[in-house]
């Protein structure tokens, strides 16, 4: 693999929720607020939770989860899915945030999507979550967008 020095246009994008969301297993996280440093290719759909990406760019997407569990002994998992609802595997750059309640496990609190050839849209889905839990507004997505 070769590397070479080149100044690449880069933007930072922050995506958040304007209000807390009551959610259960199978629900998508509904982000509705976007701030960015400049012109970029990211869009959001607050009704579906879809985060649109420009497939000609490269992305590092990190979602830091803040969750209030309805059951204090429950576990949760949030995983990235594409626009068709298919789970994005680690081979394709999707890494889940998984809190595993128990004395023999630790957790990953940040869900990451990173791919040099990104899909056109991603959604963050609660694949494991106690019914009527709350996704708090402190949940944030930070995106680094690089134009290659």
């Amino acid at each position, binding site marked *: 693999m070769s590397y070479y*020095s*080149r100044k690449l246009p880069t933007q930072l994008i922050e995506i958040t929720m304007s209000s807390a969301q009551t959610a259960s297993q199978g629900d998508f996280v509904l982000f509705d607020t976007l701030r960015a440093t400049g012109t970029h290719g990211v869009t959001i759909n607050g009704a579906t939770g879809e985060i649109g990406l420009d497939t000609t760019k490269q992305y*590092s997407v990190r979602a830091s989860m803040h969750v209030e569990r309805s059951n204090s002994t429950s576990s949760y998992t949030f995983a990235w899915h594409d626009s068709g609802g298919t789970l994005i595997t*680690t081979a394709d750059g999707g*890494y889940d945030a998984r809190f*595993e309640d128990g004395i023999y*496990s*630790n957790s990953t609190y940040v869900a990451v999507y990173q791919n040099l050839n990104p899909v056109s849209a991603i959604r963050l889905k609660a694949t494991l979550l106690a019914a009527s839990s709350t996704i708090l507004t402190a949940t944030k997505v930070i995106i680094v967008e690089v134009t290659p």
Partner: protein
Amino acid sequence: MSFGFNFPALFRAHNTTLQTGIGSGGPFNLQFSEGCEIIGGSRVNIQNNAYLYGDIKIDGSTGKNQSYDIAFDPTKLISTMISEAWQIASEINLTIMVGDDAVYNVAQDNVALTVRQISGSNPGNSSADQTRVFGLRVEVTP
């Protein structure tokens, strides 16, 4: 001083098989990479400078030690700063979950995610279910 990004700017690596018997000082193994090369089964070849982010998830098998102090082990540090993160068992009685227990660093050349300390009565017997290394390759121009 100005900053730019070398191409490819983004890279990542992770394990694809469960790693057992992780002892103090040992590296976390990596098998899959994009935008970088893996050296010796555990080191990510940055080539130059990079901002790094790493995380692990320990297998939850009963009786295995699960608390690790992890850090990057770069061949060169850009500064003397190095961050560590304790990966602690998750069982708590609170309902509100917050926190990011990942490890961050800025380094040069190549780097591995390693164990600095182990806490518990059964060290060396835990298994790494997930090891994740992400990076942003940075050029620094004085």
